[in-house]
């Protein structure tokens, strides 16, 4: 045990002092925050600063639509009205767009029973703007139709008053505020953290094996330490590096979450609810996921001679992780379907898919117990295979091992 801890300590210190640790500790949250911001900000501030023109034959309808669009305070959109508009005005609006005086215009043709509305914009694929315009046009249209049926304007305002739906989630006998958006972000965040950590630290174990193989330190070490102790020390040391890094990220996340900037972004949004049991289970799934993948990568690395060879295998080993990610939306929508249950039982996909299920709906205890039990069993099997391959593979230099060779190594004592 003393030697295992000495090896773990050495591995831990070497990684912590390395440049890669410092770079990833800073860079990963920055990239993650960037992705989150990219997802949140456009929906929050659609069409910020945009200048559009509402062109309609009916001045009253155009004015109503302008009021609807201007009601979105966050958007800060400038709306001009052109009413009554004639077909020739459309050419003039195109010319203004060419001169970049306006970003787009809404062309409303009221001929017939149902008005034809067209939004012409300089940029394609502006979904958030499209959605906001759609909502504003329909709201204005409803108001206009009601007015045409001689309903007094005060009644119209009352009739069309919008209601915000407050979503709550019922767990452990109490209701807590929740929203689909915050659940989505939280689930995505947890899965990203788990996926990234498991794959990255698993690969780090593999890389560390290759480096020791390349530096020819193994035989020196094996004259003192058992191969299995070396492997165990390496797994513990690099696992501790992972925990350190995640702890730094969580601490940074905590500081950021309470900062004014994030508060302003998240204003009004319900915060995802996480219980202490879920936190403990997520930690457990991280540790087991890491143990499973790193043991696998260690065995794989022992059969390779260079990091490049290991890199070639890596995507294959990471398939289950990315498969889990692909099932994200499905599991959130159907947390108790047979497929969601199966993937959360299958050890390579269990850690991430269980994280999804936690955010959607807490699974029954027996399913968690079974999934953890299967993971422990699979770790035992992979550890047994990997340590045998590792013991022989680390002393083989010069060529990549073939599958029949690896099978022979399993038989060597």
């Amino acid at each position, binding site marked *: 045990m003393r030697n295992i801890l000495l090896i773990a300590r050495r591995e831990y210190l*070497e990684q912590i002092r*390395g440049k890669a640790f410092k770079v990833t500790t800073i860079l990963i949250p920055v990239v993650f925050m960037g992705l989150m911001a990219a997802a949140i900000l456009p929906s929050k501030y659609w069409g910020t600063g945009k200048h559009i023109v509402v062109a309609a034959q009916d001045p009253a309808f155009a004015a109503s639509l302008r009021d609807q669009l201007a009601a979105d305070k966050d958007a800060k959109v400038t709306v001009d009205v052109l009413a009554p508009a004639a077909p020739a005005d459309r050419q003039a609006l195109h010319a203004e767009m060419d001169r970049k005086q306006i970003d787009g215009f809404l062309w409303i043709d009221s001929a017939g029973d149902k008005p034809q509305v067209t939004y012409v914009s300089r940029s394609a694929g502006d979904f958030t703007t499209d959605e906001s315009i759609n909502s504003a046009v329909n709201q204005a249209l409803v108001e206009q139709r009601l007015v045409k049926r001689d309903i007094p304007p005060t009644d119209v305002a009352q009739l069309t008053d919008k209601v915000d739906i407050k979503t709550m989630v019922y767990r452990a006998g109490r209701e807590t505020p929740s929203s689909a958006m915050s659940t989505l972000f939280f689930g995505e965040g947890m899965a990203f953290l788990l996926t990234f950590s498991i794959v990255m630290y698993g690969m780090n174990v593999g890389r560390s094996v290759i480096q020791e193989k390349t530096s020819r*330190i*193994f035989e*020196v070490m094996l*004259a*003192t*330490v058992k191969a299995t102790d070396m492997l165990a020390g390496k797994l513990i040391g690099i696992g501790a590096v992972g925990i350190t890094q995640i702890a730094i990220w969580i601490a940074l996340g905590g500081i950021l979450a309470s900062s004014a900037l994030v508060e302003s972004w998240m204003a009004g949004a319900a915060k995802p609810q996480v219980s202490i049991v879920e936190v403990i289970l997520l930690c457990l799934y991280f540790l087991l996921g890491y143990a499973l993948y790193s043991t696998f990568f260690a065995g794989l690395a022992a059969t390779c001679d260079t990091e490049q060879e290991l890199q070639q295998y890596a995507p294959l080993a990471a398939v289950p992780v990315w498969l889990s990610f692909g099932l994200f939306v499905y599991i959130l929508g159907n947390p108790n379907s047979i497929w969601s249950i199966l993937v959360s039982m299958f050890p390579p996909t269990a850690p991430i898919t269980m994280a999804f299920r936690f955010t959607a709906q807490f699974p029954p205890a027996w399913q968690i117990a079974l999934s953890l039990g299967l993971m422990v069993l699979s770790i035992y099997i992979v550890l047994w295979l990997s340590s045998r391959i590792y013991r022989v593979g680390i002393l083989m230099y010069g060529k990549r091992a073939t599958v029949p060779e690896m099978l022979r190594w399993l038989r060597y004592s």
Partner: protein
Amino acid sequence: MSSASVAAPVKAPVVALDRISKSYENKVAVQDLSLQIDPGTMFGLLGPNGSGKTSTIRMMIGITMPDSGSVTMFGKPYARESLRRVGYLPEERGLYKKMKVMEQLVFLGQLRGLDPAVAGKRAHEWCERLQILDASQKKTEELSKGMQQKIQFIATLMHDPDLVVMDEPFSGLDPVNTSLLQDTLIELKKAGRAILFSTHRMDQVEKLCDSICLIHRGHAVLSGGMREVKSRYERDRVVINFEGDVSFLQHPAIKSFKNYSGQAEIQLHPHANAQDLLRAATEMATIFRFELMEPSLEEIFIRTVGEKIDA
């Protein structure tokens, strides 16, 4: 003077291999090999590349297990705990490149059971002795290959092992450092340590070792004390330094010769009389040196292996 005589204590061998064998699939790496190394001796394990030297050493120190036969270490059947008393310098040796020299030595010392303070003190003493104290705070990757080899040497010896096993210890070292490390090994031998050398450099073994075992294709083809092994072979080589007529080189006792200006290296026929040759040479030329030499280990090796190939 005391009339009582005290019998010298019989020293048990530090390590003994008894008929060990190891095969990998269809390849026999080592077959029925036996040897033993006594305390205070240097033992040479000789053989060409791929002859089974490294496989033998790996079984000796438990990196691999023999298919048959047994290993006895410090008087007991092999057990991992014995490795605390062994220093092993493999042929495929390396260091952690990113670690500082002193940190690395303390780490390796701790793995061999030393307390960190003791490991630090010994590492410092050894660095001073091998003249690399200036480099002790540098990262290993910043050092030359020779310097790194000295660090590996220290890592092998700093826990004061009773058995030192070295696979090609001097490869890649310059003559000054080779001599420094050879002197260190001789001191260790005098201090009662058992040392096993594995090499294909016969000249080094000849100079340093007390006993040898020559391996060829996994078999021990020649073994015993250095003097005893050499005495099995006739003194049939002559070196003559001379001036004058060279026609004595046509003497019937000569099987073959190489003549450099003023020095002839001669191989005699089996059982030929060297004295006859000396007489003939003195009649024709002025002789400054006439030396009847025993065969070098290299020649013995080539002859023995050649015989085995022919057989």
